[in-house]
């Protein structure tokens, strides 16, 4: 392979990106070396097995990926802002909507949610850590390595360009001969391994590490949704694993799973992709529902209304989510009976979701509502998400879908579901749990700017798409003529996307401002909240709880607070066992990244040689009998005294 094929050349935007990436890497390395922080980073972060730190790293990576995916989105809106524009050519546009989709779902939504779960979940159930701390670190580093691998595609080798769904035969070598889609197949495979491990890890954590007395029906709602999400991960991700394996074999090894001429079937890809892809939507949206439940209850000063029906609803949604995948391809030759069945199962999802919406509304009824930032996001979620839900039912009608299929109406629908359903929740969750991570709250006033810019920008950007979609604009069109009459709508949408971007910038500024100026004197429980995570210091001590809490009912922390029983007894504090840090996860991730890179370029000998490093990592892990260490009771006592005062 020649050098000019290896590096993508010939496009000034990409050339500038290459320079920018090069300078950023050099700058970062120089800065860290100048500050002499390598040892600190290695010991405190890169090798950490602490769930809170892993969660923070997930969140940082997720926000970076949000920026990257957001820039892709802005470029798309700029390209379609006026008819006949040629800011990007068709090929470049294809690459950008492909990476936008992949990055936003798999490298933005997933890590941000899993990051918040990592921080909050063990705290909510009164545990010291997750069940398998080292595996947790491995999950993070695999995701991170995969994200980096996927992201270099646009300067090295070329980006995937067949859409985030990568339908065959378009995604096959015949129509996509460049290596771009290899990046898709391999990077997603590596990230998927990490996600599966996370799912298993969280299920075991929740089932086996709850505080004494916390029965399943006394778990906080966010824990419940995390549990159901984790089950969905374990049930759905292996399907993606196999679909990607088939894709890899077809593209790189000449197999014929999806080649019609050799007896293959492209519809097999569609079915497998959506058998994973539809549950994936709920994998990202259910934890968000959990966050809203916590936040709305806290800032309404009331119990969550209809706890039991909430639990039944999420289980029902999870179950139904596995039974609707065909609604993604009603128009691709199914019989009327098949389409009808999937039409009905799809519409049924509206029932439990509606139950949840009403439960949130009833939670607020007669509550003393505080309009904090976290609450504002939760309030904005309800109408925006309902628009997404109602248009979803419109799309679910198979006969009508022949009109909407593959139009901008669909694009508008899923952005109305995923942005309020995931992004608003992540923002709400960040404002809410920020003190648990960093020991200060984000600024409320700058937060309001963030909120209004983002929510208004979001509606401006995506609302017009419903109308151009109904008017026949198909998705993925990179340009259009004046005569279509879409120009005013798409122009408005482009302006909206700038407002949206300004909202994101306000969040970044808020984080910067709050790091510098926010008060550090906030105690453990700044929101007067209800669940166990607020029974710890802010930021949380490395061992989480000095003494494992005991639970007799839902919202135990709230009950204790009202009865004045939140005292820690000195004599109950004992030595605390902690797991040791490990360098193996990050080293294995590097090995996976290198092997993946060689596979993408189809340099199989090199890939085989370096996969020995992966096997060596597994063996080293198996022979590692490090049993961790103990934090002495005296030190625990000192730490607790520092934030609780007397003890």
């Amino acid at each position, binding site marked *: 392979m020649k050098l000019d094929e290896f590096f993508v050349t010939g496009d000034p935007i990409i050339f500038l990106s290459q320079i920018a990436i090069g300078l950023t890497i050099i700058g970062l390395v120089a800065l860290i070396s100048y500050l002499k922080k390598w040892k600190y980073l290695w010991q405190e972060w890169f090798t950490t097995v602490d769930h809170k730190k892993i969660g923070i790293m997930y969140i940082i990576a997720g926000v970076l990926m949000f920026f990257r995916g957001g820039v892709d989105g802005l470029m798309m809106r700029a390209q379609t802002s006026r008819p006949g524009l040629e800011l990007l050519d068709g090929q470049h546009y294809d690459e950008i909507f492909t990476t936008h989709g992949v990055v936003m779902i798999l490298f933005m939504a997933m890590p941000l949610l899993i990051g918040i779960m990592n921080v909050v979940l063990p705290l909510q159930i009164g545990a010291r850590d997750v*069940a*398998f701390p080292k595996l947790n670190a491995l999950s993070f580093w695999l995701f991170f390595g995969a994200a980096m691998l996927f992201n270099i595609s646009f300067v090295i080798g070329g980006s995937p360009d067949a859409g985030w769904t990568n339908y065959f035969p378009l995604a096959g070598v015949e129509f996509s001969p460049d290596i771009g889609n290899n990046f898709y197949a391999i990077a997603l495979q590596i990230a998927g391994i990490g996600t*599966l491990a996370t*799912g*298993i*890890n969280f*299920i*075991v954590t929740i*089932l*086996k*590490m709850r505080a004494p007395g916390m029965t399943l029906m006394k778990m906080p709602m966010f824990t419940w949704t995390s549990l159901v999400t984790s089950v969905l991960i*374990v*049930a*759905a*991700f*292996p*399907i993606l*694993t*196999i*679909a990607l*394996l*088939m894709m890899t*074999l*077809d593209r790189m*090894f*000449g*197999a*014929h*799973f999806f*080649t019609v*001429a*050799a*007896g*293959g*079937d492209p519809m*097999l890809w569609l079915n*497998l992709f959506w*058998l994973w892809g539809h549950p994936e939507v709920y994998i990202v949206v259910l934890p968000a529902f959990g966050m809203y439940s916590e936040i709305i209850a806290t800032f309404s000063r009331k119990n969550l209304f209809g706890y039991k029906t909430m639990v039944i609803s999420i289980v029902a949604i999870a179950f139904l989510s596995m039974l609707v995948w065909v609604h993604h391809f009603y128009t691709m030759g199914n019989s009327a009976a098949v389409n009808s069945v999937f039409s009905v199962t799809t519409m049924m999802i509206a029932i439990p979701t509606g139950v949840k919406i009403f439960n949130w509304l009833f939670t607020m009824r007669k509550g003393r509502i505080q309009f904090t930032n976290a609450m504002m996001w939760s309030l904005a979620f309800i109408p925006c998400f309902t628009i997404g839900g109602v248009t979803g039912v419109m799309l679910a009608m198979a006969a009508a879908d022949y009109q909407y299929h593959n139009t901008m109406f669909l694009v508008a629908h899923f952005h109305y579901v995923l942005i309020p359903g995931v992004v608003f929740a992540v923002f709400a969750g960040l404002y809410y749990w920020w003190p648990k991570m960093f020991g200060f709250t984000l600024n409320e006033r700058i937060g309001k700017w963030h909120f209004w810019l983002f929510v208004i920008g979001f509606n401006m950007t995506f609302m017009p798409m419903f109308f151009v979609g109904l008017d026949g604009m198909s998705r993925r069109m990179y340009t259009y003529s004046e005569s279509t009459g879409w120009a005013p709508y798409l122009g408005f949408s482009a302006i909206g996307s700038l407002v949206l971007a300004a909202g994101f910038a306000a969040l970044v500024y808020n984080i910067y401002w709050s790091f510098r100026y926010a008060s550090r004197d906030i105690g453990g429980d700044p929101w007067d909240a209800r669940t166990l995570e607020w029974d710890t210091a802010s930021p949380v001590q490395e061992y989480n709880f000095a003494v494992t809490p005991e639970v007799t009912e839902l919202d135990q922390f709230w009950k204790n607070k009202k009865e004045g029983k939140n005292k820690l007894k000195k004599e109950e504090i004992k030595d605390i066992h902690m797991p040791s840090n490990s360098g193996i996860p990050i080293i294995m991730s590097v090995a996976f990244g290198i092997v993946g890179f060689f596979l993408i370029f189809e340099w199989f000998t090199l890939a085989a040689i370096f996969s020995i490093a992966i*096997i060596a990592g597994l*063996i080293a892990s*198996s*022979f590692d*009998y490090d049993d961790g260490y103990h934090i002495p009771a005296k030190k625990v006592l000192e730490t607790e005294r520092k934030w609780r005062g007397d003890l």
Partner: protein
Amino acid sequence: MASQTSTPLEYSTHQNEMNILGFWLFLGAEIVLFATLFAGYFVLEGGTADGPTLAEIFVLNDVLIETFLLLTSSFTMGLALHQMRHNNLKGMLIFTVITLLLGAGFMYMEINEFIHYVHEGATLQTSAFTSAFFTLLGTHGAHVSFGIVWITMLIIQLVQRGITPVTSRKFFIASLYWHFLDVVWIFILTFVYLRGVLM
């Protein structure tokens, strides 16, 4: 017998219980993984595109030997676990080594089988059917090979450390994995080979 009235050693700590539950969940994921491969195989088994069908090329005799080797290895794995429960390290190691030899015999037979198919003109690239067939069998074979390496590493640890709560837990988990591969093979035998004869 003491081992049958008290908690087995591999369940003796909370961390061990969690590891075993985690592995059961992993096996759940593996079931989905193989189910997907089977689904792909069923969709594509008719897609032979002028290439050979399974009935034309496979040797039932060899497949039955493979089945015998793998099923027997599952049995000896059970015996090894039985020895572990009786805290008999030596017996445990003997049966484990027999298990691995049977597993290696299975792999030898399967590799021969694959070479035979290639000589008959059926490769991964021949047709959609051969792609699905080799991927399903190859994934199972890769799992068996992985298991052989894994359990070999456990033998070293057992020799070094004896039967402890940690090594017994590791061995118990590996045995679950080994039995699982046996179950998958029974499905392959039934729904790939025997069905191939009938079709």
